[in-house]
């Protein structure tokens, strides 16, 4: 392992600690006294004090944070009031579908965005470039939830090509269908929700990608590849593409944040059984421990994705200095 990787892994510790502190602090924003809320207005001061001690509310904030942190390290995120089961269990169960959705959306968005950006740069100031620029502008200006509704209306309701909601067709699940049929079924369910997120991500990636491609294609070291007799295709697909990827990588990391956050809308619209929908339900039920756990897990996933994109950028361009 190179020094860079070790450094980045070590840096992960304070960032994750910080993330947990922020999640903890946000939940401390909840107005009012939790003990009062639980016991009601007629509780005696003694009972209130007793419950506060039981909830740890009489402790200083940092002790409560450390206690919560200790629980997390043991896989204990508390107990969900609304689901009447451990938060960790509920969250982990929903994490898989969300990661599947987010990863697909990010991959689609990256491929679409890079292709659009490169195409626009190659056809700089021509009709294709203007068309891509317009599409990219629409991409970054469209609310993903509205886009999701439109896609659903068009492809599921009007054309009937794709399922409108859920992750699998219920009768296929556990119905003895083969792995292949099941995969195809999930892919069909996945297409619309991931596309709703991917088109927006592609807008941002395409915008940055176009600028990066213009810069890279004009750079001397790419231009002068031609002096060595390399083919235009090789220069584009090897030299220019790597340069563009290295520049776009941090933006892909940022888009992971958008995709993970945006999953909240898209899972709600498409009834996708993921963490985002769990969060919306938990907020509606005022199940704060569940919200806390879900946000913590999603934010940690985002931190890890950013670690991955940073490392990918370092692998693409070794001049990137360690933080």
């Amino acid at each position, binding site marked *: 392992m190179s020094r860079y990787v070790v450094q980045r892994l070590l840096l992960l510790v304070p960032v994750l600690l910080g993330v947990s502190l922020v999640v903890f602090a946000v939940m401390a924003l909840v107005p009012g006294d939790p003990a009062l809320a639980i016991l009601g207005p007629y509780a005696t001061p003694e009972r209130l004090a007793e419950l506060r001690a039981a909830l740890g509310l009489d402790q200083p904030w940092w002790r409560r944070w450390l206690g919560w942190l200790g629980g997390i390290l043991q896989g204990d995120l508390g107990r969900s009031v609304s689901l009447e089961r451990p938060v960790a269990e509920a969250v982990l169960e929903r994490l898989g579908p969300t990661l599947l959705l987010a990863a697909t959306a990010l991959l689609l968005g990256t491929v679409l965005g890079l292709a659009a950006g490169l195409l626009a740069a190659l056809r700089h100031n021509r009709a294709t470039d203007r068309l891509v620029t317009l599409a990219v502008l629409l991409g970054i200006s469209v609310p993903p939830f509205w886009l999701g509704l439109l896609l659903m209306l068009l492809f599921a309701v009007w054309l009937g090509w794709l399922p409108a909601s859920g992750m699998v067709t219920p009768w296929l699940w556990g119905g003895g269908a083969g792995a292949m049929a099941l995969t195809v079924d999930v892919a069909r369910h996945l297409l619309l929700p991931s596309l709703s997120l991917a088109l927006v991500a592609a807008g941002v990636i395409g915008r940055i990608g176009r600028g990066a491609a213009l810069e890279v294609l004009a750079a001397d070291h790419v231009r002068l590849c031609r002096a060595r007799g390399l083919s235009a295709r090789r220069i584009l697909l090897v030299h220019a593409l790597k340069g563009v990827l290295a520049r776009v990588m941090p933006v892909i990391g940022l888009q992971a944040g958008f995709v993970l956050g945006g999953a909240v809308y898209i899972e709600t619209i498409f009834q996708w059984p993921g963490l985002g929908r769990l969060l919306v339900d938990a907020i509606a039920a005022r199940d704060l421990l569940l*919200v806390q756990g879900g946000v913590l897990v999603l934010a940690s996933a985002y931190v890890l994705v950013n670690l991955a994109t940073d490392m990918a950028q370092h692998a693409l361009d070794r001049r990137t200095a360690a933080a």
Partner: protein
Amino acid sequence: MSRDASRVAAEGIATPALPVWLRHPGAVAGLGLLALVLLPALAAPVLPLADPAQTAPAQRMLPALSAGHLLGTDQLGRDLLSRLVWGARASIGVGVLATVIAALVGTVIGLAGAWLGRWADALLMRGVDVLMAFPYLLLALAIVAALGPGLGNAMLAIAVANVPFFARAVRGAALEIRHQDYIAAARLAGHGELAILAREVLPNLAPTLLLLMTTTLGWMVLETAGLSFLGLGAQPPAADLGSMLGAGREFLTTYPRVAVLPGLVIVVLVVGINLVGDGLRDLLDPRWVPRRPGAGLVATRAAGPVATRAAAPVATRAATPAAAPVATPVAHGRGGTGAACADDLPLLRVRGLEVRLPAPSGPVAAVDGVDLDLRRGERVALVGESGCGKTLTALSLLRLLPAGAVQRGSVRLDGTELMALAARDLQALRGRRLAYVPQEPLTALDPLFRVGFQIDETRRAHGADTALATPALLRLVGLSGVADLPRRFPHELSGGQRQRVALALALAHGPDLLIADEATTALDVTVQREILALLRRLCAEQGRALLFVSHDLAVVSTLCDRVLVMYAGRIVEDAPAAALLRRPAHPYTAALLGATPALGRPHKALSVLPGAPPMPGTQPSGCRFAPRCPRVQPVCHAGEPDLVPYAGRGEAYQGQDWDEGRRVRCRLPLEDEA
């Protein structure tokens, strides 16, 4: 050069009455879209609209164009148009407010980070880092979850989630301002830090801040709409566009209009905001050039960066018709007529080479009618000050000019007319018969690939079987002793090693002609001498022709047989190296020699040639050197002299005519004064 010049010119041409932003089509379109949503939203209280909260169950889901309801009614019989206008009003208001709050708090944090010193800065910025480690939507969601749903809380959550972004950007801008001279001056004048912040920093920060706010306003509107969509923002009966969309979702299949229209308004609004933001960014960017009607389009296109595939055909298209009169329409293949008479034909024959660069007033010739011949194995130097057209000449021999530059004339390699070659045939020549070594080796090497990879791909470009094997190649350029070299990246090599790698890439296919463009200028003197010795050896041993571009006559003297002196796009003197160095004929050559330190003559007085070569397009009508020439006579201004044979005194030098084939472009060449 060209950018600033064209900006000035463009502003000169434009009608002064037209504000500059009106010439930014994106900004104008953006303002139009914005007005479409913003004006009705602002005027909502005075517009004759129905009460947006007035329910009428009997009139639910009326279609568009119903009596009294232009866009129909929604699921509760409320007027849709009225709700859209009032909803947009709420969305814009919340978005703007969230932006202002985020900007204010972010500015305070950013300024504190930039001004309070290391520890406070480190602490604040780590805090910002941690907040940025959250997907911002998730952070906003958590805050709303804690505070409870409501439009005010949603707005606050979005604002908080965006504070880190502003804090980081403001800190960066403020740190830059902090190191400016006028801040130091204000301190010396005895102003307190707070006064400096208020009077000096904030006004200078304002454009950046305005730009940040415009570019984030779009997100803010989208994000608050998102929270409302989830039911966490506006609570009924109040509504913003997001909550209308969320409520309309249930009726998507039956009455799509109710959900689709609010989304459409959001899109129009946000596209408008983003276009205005982009426009503002361009207008605040000093490098931005407003587009002029007609000619402006051409200029913008020409000034644009190169696209690898696009550039070649454009240049070809532009160049071929002009070249046609000069070039023979028949392109000779290798081994055709050209090779048959290779003995009497030079390896490279250039005739009437012209390179035109785009300029606001139309293209100007930076290389203006260059003729040159290079025999097989001959080493020729091309010298002159910067800006004389040397590099453009060198690049045009490979047809590798930067985008926008157009070349004309004839370039023949072994009888093959390069100007008439298709891109694919040209590619087959580059690197194999013609090779190029640039001034800065980092421009010849892609920083993202290992040296070994680049050597391999270059060897494979024309079939690896004809190329030199990598170890032999590395030995050739004196790199065989560097351990692990192929595994290294260009930035892990020294300047000299990089230049040797660049040479190795150029030599991989044993080219007939090596073009070295200031290939030693960027190196320190000892390394420079090593590379020069290497070049001399490589050419002498393998009978390779060399075109060595340099501004340094001292370097040239040890390497080349013949020297071409270039001034303002023209060859002004062409002479054997020994004769030229001892007895320059052109006053410009003499001036260059006078400015060259000579080895072993430490006390030689260096004379400096005042002034600079004329910019392309501004050459005088007479001799181009006349304005700077110490020997100028009235006759020099009467038309430009031709490049004519110069006899000198016909002395012999080492058994050869001292001045053989010598030419000079001067009416009053220097005589031997000794």
